[in-house]
């Protein structure tokens, strides 16, 4: 085991391998507040990558309803129970990561292999509310809501310290130095399922017709062309911004991901306490009580919600960036906001998206003087 620094838990931790930072690190920010649970991401991924025999049950991208949903069932609660929780002290995680918990038992990674049944209900718990029942005439007019649920879209986090890589006994899983994408080499995989057991997010999956494990490939053929992955590009709610994340000590203010994650601290990692340093970041849902969110996104939740509720509408840069989400098929590595229009640029500096913060609109009088006619506008 080697000491590595994990900025998400603000301390050093033990990891199986040296994990030098890749030249670039694949990352994305999802605004949960805008996710409508339409599953378009799930289906575009499914039709692109997992239509083969043995892949029927696989959803490399899935959307689950929290708190009750999970694919596979209870993937997160089961692991939280195993690592035994842990306190955060001013941004530093004082509990055990999955690597530290495992080291106590002479293992690489604390994990578990889900049962067949656990993969069988990808939409279990959909839209189920927490906090009691909704009564007739009930009106909720304060934040957070006493009754709530939210959608959590998930794919492989292409972690900086991947547990699937750590747990593979034959190094068939690897992290690409050029972009940080984590892949399973199908020619080396022996189907031992240690990556399935080791990944805390349960994104490697076993194919029972090829006898090998598979996982989200971050649509690398598209990413290599500077394009968004299928799930990012086809998001109906425009909740996703894909790009490259810099180390926390060298954020670039014109990089959309850096600005959201490092500068504004609006987007947070999913279960940072697992210790893998995941690279999909979430803007937490502002209607959900913070204790649950803190367990899922770490101690930055209150600050992120404060920024979202109080700063966004006074900050044209941040507001512009949020409007830029989902505005182009190209990955926007740089952005700018000028004259209330957000501009997105690809890696070559070409302008690929322009999004006005406020859409131009015209209010038409219901009486048209020129034609001496009334229009029955529907509000």
């Amino acid at each position: 085991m080697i000491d590595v620094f994990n900025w998400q838990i603000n301390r050093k931790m033990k990891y199986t391998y040296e994990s030098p930072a890749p030249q670039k690190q694949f990352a994305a920010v999802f605004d949960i507040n805008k996710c409508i649970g339409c599953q378009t991401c799930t289906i575009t991924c499914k039709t692109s990558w997992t239509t083969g025999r043995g892949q029927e049950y696989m959803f490399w991208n899935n959307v689950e309803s929290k708190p009750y949903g999970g694919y596979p069932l209870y993937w997160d609660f089961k692991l939280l129970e195993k690592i035994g929780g842990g306190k955060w002290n001013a941004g530093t995680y004082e509990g055990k990561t999955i690597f530290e918990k495992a080291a106590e038992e002479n293992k690489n990674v604390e994990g578990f292999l889900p049962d067949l049944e656990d993969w069988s209900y990808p939409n279990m718990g959909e839209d189920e509310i927490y906090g009691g029942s909704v009564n007739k005439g009930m009106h909720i007019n304060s934040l957070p809501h006493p009754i709530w649920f939210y959608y959590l879209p998930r794919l492989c986090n292409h972690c900086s310290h991947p547990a699937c890589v750590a747990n593979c006994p034959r190094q068939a899983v690897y992290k690409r130095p050029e972009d940080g994408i984590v892949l399973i080499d199908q020619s080396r995989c022996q189907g031992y399922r240690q990556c399935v057991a080791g990944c805390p997010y349960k994104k490697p999956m076993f194919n029972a017709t090829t006898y090998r494990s598979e996982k989200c490939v971050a649509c690398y053929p598209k990413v290599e062309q500077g394009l968004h992955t299928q799930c990012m590009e086809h998001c109906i709610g425009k909740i996703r911004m894909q790009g490259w994340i810099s180390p926390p000590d060298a954020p670039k203010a014109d990089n959309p991901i850096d600005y959201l994650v490092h500068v504004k601290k609006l987007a947070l990692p999913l279960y940072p306490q697992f210790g893998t340093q995941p690279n999909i970041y979430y803007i937490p849902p502002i209607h959900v009580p913070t204790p649950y969110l803190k367990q899922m996104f770490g101690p930055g939740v209150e600050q992120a919600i404060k920024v979202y509720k109080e700063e966004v509408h006074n900050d044209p840069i941040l507001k512009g960036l949020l409007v830029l989400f989902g505005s182009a098929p190209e990955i926007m590595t740089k952005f700018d906001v000028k004259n209330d229009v957000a501009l997105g640029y690809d890696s070559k500096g070409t302008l690929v998206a322009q999004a006005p913060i406020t859409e131009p609109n015209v209010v038409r009088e219901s009486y048209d003087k020129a034609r001496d006619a009334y229009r029955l506008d529907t509000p």
Partner: protein
Amino acid sequence: MRKVLAAAVVVTCLVMLSALSSAAMLEPVTIKYVNKPITADNADIFNSAKAQSVGLISVSQSNHLGSGAVPAGDTKKLQTNARYIFDLSAEAPAMTVKAVHNGKTVAIQVTWTDKTENVETAIDSFRDSVALMFPTAASEFNPSPLMGSKGEPVNIWQWRADWQAEKEGRRHLEARQPQTEGIHVGYSDAIMKGEFPGKPSAESTTLDYVAEGYGTITRLKEQPVKASGHYKDGKWTVVFLRDINRASGSDAELLPGKNTFMNVAVWNGQNRDVNGSKAISTVWIPLHIEAAK
């Protein structure tokens, strides 16, 4: 909680293993010469061969996928970082070996006890399996029993109960994974399986590998080893067949009149055995190939 005996030996303890692998005390297994045609369905070929028992020791993995893991408390007592541990308290299968050749084909029959027949490999199921390991080059010296080492390759023949069952039409995908029926199968299936076939051929029950140490096991391009197995009365019997002439330098050299070595591994699907979780013979068994008459 299951107890691992204090006498449990750490696999990674190379000193101990090199002592074990001197193997001088073991009686050799003889590949007997028979003047008969050797085929998979000819049971008579083994009549003249002596059944030799092979001692197996159970290996547990600390990161085992099932509930049968080495208890954390016990591994702590061993004061080791081992991921693989000889578990002398676990029941290991009783195995016998018989082997013959006719100058053209070698047949090796292994029989071992297993209370359950496990013929599935799916989301959370694990198959029974057996593997034989040989040095690729026959000599008086043996390579590392830990799947060989750099420059000292070993050849591994692995038979799989799931593939045997599939060949016999006893295996159905819908029984072993969810959401199978009525789902459209796209073109990517053929592309993926063309590139990375699950099995070398539809009829395969066996894989022929070369390895130079842990984590290096690699499928050979040519797959000259065939095997057939059946389960009856709590026992698996598997017969491996291969041409006595090897297909490539990565296959085991089996020369009539000469000696080589063999090691055996057995996986019990019921225990969720896969990878390093298995029962192994631990020491090289001397193998004598009778001269053709």
